[in-house]
């Protein structure tokens, strides 16, 4: 053995997939997919929402069984039966959706099924468990007590626990399905450091993400999928425009950023002296008609907390909220909706989507009153029409309007959640991580949509951990750190650097 094989060389693949197909009721999710993964490479898998990326990976991880086709591991055909079987084959996966046990501690989550024992194997060795976990966290530079119940963590930290869990296995194949969707830059850097280290150890990594810059930074090769088929596998230095064109079947044009002058517009929402425990400390801001205000900050800065508090989802300690100059009492989301607000949650699985209901029921949930005849009976026809409009407008990929929301791909679920607030037609909209898990094509459409909404005279707050997104959309950026607003930057002057500086201004 000489030096490490450089990616791109003809090395025997760890995993190779040929002609793989998988159907769900009404959907052909995979149709003759091919894919291969070499040891020691980061192989990016890209494609629009619903292209079949997660489905392919779930088959490799033993969650689903393939309908037909072949999966080879080290050249040998394998039939991956179950998650446990995948584990025994040294295939690890970080799922797109979080799968954690909220009542268990971080350590208990990570080592579930592999707990260290004592007393001849009868009892669990909790101390050892926590020590092992601490060691793992130290390796990942993750500051988190192993004994924290996972339910008390923010989505971002839960994501870190998922990552730590996947890394705690000795894997030869590591699948990461949108691991950074909830992470901020610093954490992404940390993750990339770990990925590089694993790569140098010869682990083959499948990396799924909709963030182009990440692909360029970390990937060795890129496979593009569309509509359940493989389009092509190309080296990572292929121009991104070309990759995107392969994904969406056309070239995207970039809208130039235009910041309208809204200084004379009516103030639609004003928040004064908001306080809630340590999470929100004396937060005041206002949003005018036609304005898009971005909220930037690191994970746990308190942006979500502010949005939830203003929306009435969490109780306040103090503070007042004015809508169109009038003081309003907001004690519940219902009050907020009545005052003309909408809030798109960052956690669609728990707070966004009624996963067991169909697409059209979800889309019309907040606005249901408008679709009633005689204040009581559902106006089915009108519901169909408006839902179909949204499905077309946002290009939601679904076999029908009555498909159960849970069965849509992650990105399409997010689009459904966006659609429900678009239908509700609120004056003031909070979008918390609106493009989480959304593909590039759809992203630029959602940007356009937000800009249109603002142009129609609505007030929009965008909370995002993706600085480029904040930079591209915001007319004005507010930066938070540790529950305070640490600064305000006009959209024209905002740069990654000055926002980061404010985001880390602790006192």
């Amino acid at each position: 053995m000489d030096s490490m094989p450089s990616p791109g060389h003809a090395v025997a693949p760890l995993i190779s997939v040929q002609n793989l197909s998988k159907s769900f009721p009404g959907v052909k999710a995979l149709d003759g997919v091919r894919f291969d993964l070499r040891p020691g490479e980061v192989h990016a898998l890209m494609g629009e929402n619903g292209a079949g990326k997660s489905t392919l990976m779930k088959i490799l991880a033993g969650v689903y069984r393939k309908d037909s086709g072949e999966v080879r591991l080290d050249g040998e055909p394998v039939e991956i039966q179950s998650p446990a079987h995948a584990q025994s084959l040294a295939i690890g996966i970080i799922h797109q959706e979080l799968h954690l046990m909220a009542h268990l501690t971080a350590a208990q989550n990570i080592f579930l099924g592999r707990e260290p024992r004592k007393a001849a194997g009868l009892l669990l060795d909790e101390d050892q468990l926590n020590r092992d976990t601490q060691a793992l966290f130290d390796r990942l530079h993750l500051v988190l007590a192993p004994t924290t119940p996972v339910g008390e963590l923010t989505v971002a930290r839960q994501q870190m626990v998922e990552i730590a869990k996947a890394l705690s296995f000795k894997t030869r194949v590591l699948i990461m399905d949108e691991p950074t969707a909830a992470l901020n830059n610093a954490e992404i850097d940390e993750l990339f450091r770990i990925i590089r280290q694993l790569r140098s150890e010869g682990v083959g990594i499948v990396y799924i993400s909709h963030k182009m810059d990440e692909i360029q930074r970390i990937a060795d090769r890129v496979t593009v999928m569309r509509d359940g088929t493989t389009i092509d596998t190309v080296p990572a230095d292929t121009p991104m425009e070309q990759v995107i064109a392969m994904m969406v079947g056309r070239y995207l044009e970039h809208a130039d950023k235009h910041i309208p002058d809204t200084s004379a517009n009516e103030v639609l929402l004003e928040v004064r002296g908001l306080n809630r425990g340590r999470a929100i400390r004396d937060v005041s801001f206002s949003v005018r008609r036609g304005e898009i205000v971005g909220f930037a900050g690191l994970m746990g800065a308190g942006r979500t907390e502010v949005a939830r508090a203003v929306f009435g989802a969490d109780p306040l300690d103090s503070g007042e909220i004015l809508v169109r100059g009038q003081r309003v009492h907001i004690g519940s989301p219902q009050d907020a909706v009545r005052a003309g607000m909408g809030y798109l949650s960052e956690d669609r699985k728990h707070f966004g989507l009624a996963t067991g209901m169909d697409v059209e029921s979800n889309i019309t949930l907040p606005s249901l009153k408008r679709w009633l005849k005689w204040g009581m009976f559902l106006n089915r026809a009108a519901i169909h029409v408006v839902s179909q409009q949204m499905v077309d407008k946002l290009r939601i990929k679904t076999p029908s309007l009555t498909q159960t929301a849970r069965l849509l791909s992650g990105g399409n679920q997010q689009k459904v959640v966006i659609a429900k607030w678009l239908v509700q037609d609120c004056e003031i909209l909070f979008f918390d991580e609106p493009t989480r898990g959304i593909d590039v094509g759809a992203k630029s459409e959602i940007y356009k949509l937000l800009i249109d909404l603002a142009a129609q005279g609505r007030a929009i707050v965008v909370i995002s951990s993706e600085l480029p997104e904040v930079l591209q959309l915001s007319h004005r950026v507010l930066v938070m750190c540790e529950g305070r607003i640490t600064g305000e930057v006009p959209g024209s002057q905002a740069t990654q650097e000055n926002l980061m500086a404010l985001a880390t201004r602790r006192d």
Partner: protein
Amino acid sequence: MTQATSPLSWLARFFGVQAKQKLLAFASLIALLAVFSVLKPDAFMTQDNFIGILQSTTVIGVLAIASTFVIITSGIDLSVGVLMTFCAVMAGVFIVNLGFPLPLGIACALAMGALSGCISGLVITKLKVPPFIATLGMMMLLKGLSLLITQTRPIYFSDVEGFDQISLGSLIGDVFPSLPIPNGVLILFLVAAVCAVVLNKTALGRYTFALGSNEEAVRLSGVNVDRWKVIIYTFAGGICGISGLLIASRLNSAQPALGQGYELDAIAAVVIGGTSLSGGVGTILGTIIGAFIMSVLINGLRIMSVAQEWQMVLTGLIIILAVYTDNLRRNKP
């Protein structure tokens, strides 16, 4: 079976059953009917016995319909059986003891059912007591109240003209003397039809499903979750009131100690009918079929003079089996 398709699909549409395969719950029912007909044709396959089966399904059927709503919200109502009795007792109090005219007395009794449901709803939403416990508490409370109010003696409706006709009379039989289907059965189907409309075509139904699917998401959609939950439990309580009237009319008396245990039969019927105990899924038609599966089973075993101990064993087995086959159907499209 081809002929059956079009009425079936009409039924399916009416009751909001999207996937036609769900109606295969019928299959279990048909199978049961077939088995008993073959084993005991002369006694089982008679008009009298069929009317007996229909009649014996009325009370549990209506309770099961009420439970369907609660179960779709992913709640549970253990008080339905006792609530039924409570409403029967209140009907006795209003009509017999206080001498209200029949329609007013009935309305008041139904209102008491709705009120009790409303209280359960308030305990669940405002005191944040889980439905199982809230309705367990209500069950004990209402049982005690029924006994207290009646001083543990039945209230007889013997002197109330026409009261027993609510359940036992036969409007259909008056028109078609060869088809003496009791009014109680009509009421069951009427309640089922109205409730199917409510569940599938109104805001109340939509929120019932939504709450069972993801309550927090509904709350964050600006819906007053608490209010709707209270409304749903109130509505279910009112429906239980109807079954209270049915049983009071059938027995021509309000029996204060009856009712406990009926909730389990009702819940079994609901689940056999394909409603999920984890919420978000369910149909009224399924519930009705579930209720008939239960009563055909029990009737058939009785007709075959199966020893009561064996009846219990077989009922237990068949409840499990019915839900199992229902799962099979659902997972294999």
